[in-house]
């Protein structure tokens, strides 16, 4: 999942726009945006982040500029614990792979490692669900409740139901959920429904997607589509 590989994969699959949403950080968004700009037919790249709230709910934030995404990322980072090395079990075989820590690499646009993340990105941030949505909105972003059809790390999974006083801009259905027709369960919230691949591996990219009816694949157009403004809109397959 290097920046050049990500944008090449999107380009080959004919994906017009991707959002880069690492867990609790926007540390690699600039590199992916640069990589996309450097190839012909590179996708539009929305700088984003997938924030883990205090309640361990995943919320996606999409932003107009990498500076906005990074400002949010900095606020999240201030409350994250330091990276904790994998515990090695006594008596477990000490093979090289067992001892190797999973690395959270920072990369440049060519895919060269420029640093290692020193915080525990998999931990919960110090922002509650409401505070997280507010944080995203304060930086002009779009907030999306992630994979609401899944049991793990979703608003319904953690909190039993979707509270009506949290001003999400959209709800995201997982690719598997969309394929099983689960979007219908979430129509009553009156929010736009999105789907995406949530890909953690290149080959999964494009397994879930949203069709945006917009003149160009850009943040402002997507914002209009989610607000059903100026004739823009979106549908999921």
């Amino acid at each position, binding site marked *: 999942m290097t920046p050049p590989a990500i944008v090449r994969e999107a380009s080959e699959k004919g994906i017009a726009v991707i959002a880069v949403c690492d867990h609790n950080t926007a540390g690699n968004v600039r590199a992916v945006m640069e990589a996309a700009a450097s190839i012909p037919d590179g996708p539009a790249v929305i700088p984003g982040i997938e924030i883990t709230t205090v*309640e361990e709910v995943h919320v996606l934030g999409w932003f107009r500029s990498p500076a906005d995404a990074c400002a949010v990322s900095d606020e999240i980072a201030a409350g994250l614990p330091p990276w904790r090395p994998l515990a090695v079990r006594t008596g477990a075989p000490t093979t090289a792979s067992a001892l190797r820590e999973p690395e959270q690499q920072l990369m440049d646009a060519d895919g060269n490692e420029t640093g290692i993340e020193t915080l525990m990105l998999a931990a919960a941030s110090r922002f*509650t*669900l409401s505070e997280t949505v507010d944080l995203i909105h304060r930086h002009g972003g779009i907030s999306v409740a992630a994979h609401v059809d899944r*049991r793990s790390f979703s608003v*319904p*999974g*953690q*909190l*039993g*139901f979707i*509270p009506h*006083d949290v001003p999400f801009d959209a709800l995201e259905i997982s690719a598997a959920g969309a394929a099983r027709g689960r979007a219908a369960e979430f129509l009553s919230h009156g929010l736009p429904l999105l789907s995406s691949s949530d890909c953690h591996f290149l080959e999964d990219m494009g397994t879930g997607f949203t069709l945006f009816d917009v003149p160009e694949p850009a943040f402002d157009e997507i914002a209009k589509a989610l607000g059903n403004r100026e004739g823009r809109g979106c549908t999921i397959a």
Partner: protein
Amino acid sequence: MTLGQIVSFLGLEVLTPELSVNGGADVTRGHASDLLSDVLANAPSGGILLTIQVHMNVIAVALHAGLAGVVFTQGMRPEEMVRLKAVQEGLPLLAASESSFDLAGRLYALGLRGRGQPE
């Protein structure tokens, strides 16, 4: 055992002094969980919930599940709005500094049981 007896045996702090913890039905069951979808599905009606989940939704979920009260463990405290909602709905809220694990052990020793276990 009434909720009031549990409060005094375990030295729980009562976060909703506006509500009486005495006089309700006996509490014989408990559930420990921080996932409210699990509480909705599995918490035994009439039981008490041990949780570190302090989101407002805990009140609606506890009422839906017919719980007798909620104990916030490990020093967790809900916001005042959550507390006021509980008072309004008549749901006693309690607090403890111990972890859910330790508190569940003490409640088990007092005779409370989890879902599906014989009393």
